[in-house]
């Protein structure tokens, strides 16, 4: 450094250096931020979590046995009145007898002053009427609907062949609702007169103290007196046609539906990943053969083979049938995932970073596990989410046509199937499970949309 004028010191230049204002985001962090910004997807995510909690934790909160039958409350809709009046033991009724005045020979008149004797209860409904001149007997009909205006009398419930007896006691399967009793006179040869009289009986639910104790509604018989009311067992969502608690059945049914809906896609996506990445990575002839086979499996009519496989597994009625359904779904559904993964792998194989990694001496296994599969994860996750609703649909469809889970195991599909039969009278038995299926499928669909938008820029929906 002889020349003092010339300095080789580093020149300090004040320069605007690009500074990193925040740590760079990983792919997953970025996706999470995008997902959080999507309100619909986020709500769906919470819904899915809530549904899982409903089926996993629900039974601990609502400990009613889904198979227990409450025979006092059959096909009861949610929010129905469930009070019962305490009564004494049943005492038999002798009935009413009366003799008619002389016969005028014409068409038999309708019985007059048909009336309900005593309070109509679920124990018994007692009817009496004035004798009809010339009648050889009477027939009593019961209907749950008003016979007017069509004259729909309902079911014949009794036939009285002695005209002196002008009363009837109904003790047949009475529920706490309104019944329409119609009385018709019969002539000497048992032919029915077209004239009828209808009486209405608003039946109240009654229970004896002993029964209440037996059902666990009260602790001691001495706790209640005659005329007190006790509350029947509580069913928040009502009961089904066998008196089973709907809420408990929905919780246990969710187990089957969600289990199949989540586990089946999980397994077939894994098979799809392995198969697809093998095909994509090997390429050439092997790839062609593998994919042609996948094409054939795709061509199999899915539901037909599902049913065939069930027969193959020899599922007897009474078996739950969950296992075979799962295996059948996995066996038949993997090709779509395999195709997708193969396409991704083929694309990624040509990327620069794979070449770089190879140049650094990376082995095939390492390439697949470290680079290829993680980079297809986004697409796979989206496929998985969209596969869940279709798996739930499939389970519901199979259970609906009676090919899925067998009774008494509840599943949403089989509950819909049972509810359909009584759709017109007690719609809640169909609506509740159908609503659960729809909400679940909706949540997974919206979540899938959100995930697709968040994870994969190329697949982003045009919205």
């Amino acid at each position, binding site marked *: 450094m002889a020349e003092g004028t010339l300095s080789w010191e580093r020149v300090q230049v004040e320069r605007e250096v690009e500074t990193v204002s925040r740590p760079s985001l990983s792919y997953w962090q970025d996706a999470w931020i995008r997902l959080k910004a999507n309100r619909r997807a986020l709500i769906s995510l919470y819904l899915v979590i809530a549904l899982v909690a409903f089926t996993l934790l629900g039974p601990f909160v609502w400990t009613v046995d889904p198979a227990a039958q409450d025979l006092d409350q059959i096909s009861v809709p949610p929010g129905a009145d469930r009070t019962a009046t305490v009564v004494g033991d049943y005492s038999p009724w002798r009935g009413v007898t009366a003799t008619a005045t002389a016969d005028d020979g014409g068409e038999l008149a309708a019985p007059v002053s048909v009336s309900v004797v005593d309070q109509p209860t679920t124990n018994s409904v007692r009817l009496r009427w004035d004798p009809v001149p010339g009648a050889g007997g009477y027939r009593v009909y019961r209907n749950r609907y008003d016979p007017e205006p069509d004259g729909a009398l309902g079911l014949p419930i009794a036939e009285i062949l002695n005209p002196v007896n002008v009363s009837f006691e109904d003790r047949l399967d009475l529920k706490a609702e309104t019944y329409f009793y119609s009385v018709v006179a019969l002539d000497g040869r048992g032919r029915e007169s077209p004239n009828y009289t209808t009486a209405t009986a608003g039946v109240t639910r009654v229970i004896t103290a002993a029964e209440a104790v037996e059902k666990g509604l009260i602790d001691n018989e001495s706790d209640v007196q005659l005329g007190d009311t006790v509350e029947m067992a509580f069913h928040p969502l009502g009961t089904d046609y066998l008196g089973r608690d709907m809420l408990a059945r929905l919780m246990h049914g969710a187990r089957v539906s969600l289990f199949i809906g989540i586990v089946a896609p999980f397994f077939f996506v894994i098979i799809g990943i392995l198969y697809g990445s093998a095909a994509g990575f090997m390429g050439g002839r092997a790839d062609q053969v593998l994919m042609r086979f996948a094409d054939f499996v795709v*061509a199999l009519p899915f539901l037909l083979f599902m049913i065939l496989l069930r*027969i*193959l597994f020899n599922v007897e009625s009474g078996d739950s049938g969950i296992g075979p359904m799962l295996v059948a779904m996995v066996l038949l559904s993997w090709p779509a995932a395999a195709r997708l993964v193969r396409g991704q792998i083929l694309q990624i194989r040509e990327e620069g970073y794979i070449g770089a990694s190879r140049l650094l001496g990376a082995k095939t296994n390492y390439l697949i596990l470290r680079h290829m599969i993680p980079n297809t994860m986004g697409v796979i996750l989206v496929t998985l989410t969209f596969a869940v609703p279709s798996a739930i649909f499939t389970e519901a469809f199979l259970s609906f046509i009676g090919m899925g889970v067998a009774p008494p195991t509840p599943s949403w599909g089989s509950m819909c199937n049972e509810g359909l039969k009584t759709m017109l009278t007690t719609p809640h038995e169909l609506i509740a499970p159908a609503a659960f299926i729809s909400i679940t499928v*909706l949540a997974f669909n919206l979540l899938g949309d959100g995930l697709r938008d968040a994870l994969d820029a190329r697949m982003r*929906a045009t919205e």
Partner: protein
Amino acid sequence: MLLYTVKRLIQGIVTVWFIATATFFAMHGVPGDPLMNDKAVKPEIRANLEARYGLDKPIHMQYWIYLKNMASGDFGISFTQQNREVNDIIREHFKVSATLGILAIVFAALGGILWGALTALYRNRAPDIVIMFLVILGISVPGFVFAALGQLSVVEINDWLGFTLFPVAGWGTVQHMIVPSMVLGLGTMAFLTRLMRSSMLEIANSDFIRTARSKGLPVTRILRKHQLRNAILPVITVLGPSIAAITTGGFVVELVFAIPGLGRYFVQAVQQSDYTVIMGTTVFYGAFLVFMVIVVDVIYGFVDPRVRLE
């Protein structure tokens, strides 16, 4: 084009053979003897059946007989219904299912294209939001719920009108067909609406639309001649898979509306373990679906020459 069609047909035949083979071995994997039903089969009938299907012969011979029968269109005799051939069952009941399915697919395709185009035109405005909400609902509600609701609304409509406009169940007249086919098509229509919408929006951003606009073509003409025509293409491609969806959806609708279609027979056969009917209908349905996908693909090849190059 001819080469493409022939290639697809050969592929299709191989696929049908694969389906037939898979069905054969699946049914033979079933433990037990299909002839050993609840009621004992008479020895002479048993002998006849054994001779016809070669059930006393080794399995490869049986397979050969089965393939020969299938190829000549003989699907065998029903095990549970007396004096009925599977061919008769298919011939009699398939036309019902086919009518139902065709009506449903026409309804779904027309509705899907119409609603899809409408939502795209009114993007992010009230009609779009309302229809897309209904579409999401349509995709998320299982078919049997639609069937039940459809039947319920038929009851209500008849009640309101005071006479039977649409029968609640059964088959025969045009009135019988309308509600079931609409119910059957709903899910597919929702799906097609969504597809049509995104396809319309994608095309709206393409260069040729911009060119057409800058040329000063009238908006309706751009819509009709350029946008709609191109947007319908993806809808045509998914019609093949849609036919499969409608076929299986038909099982449920036929059950709910008591329609004497092949789907209901298939479900019944499965419930009664009527093996020949199951095998016959499976292969028949499989062949039908494969054939329909080919038809759709060939039509697509005509409509869009770009696919033929692949």
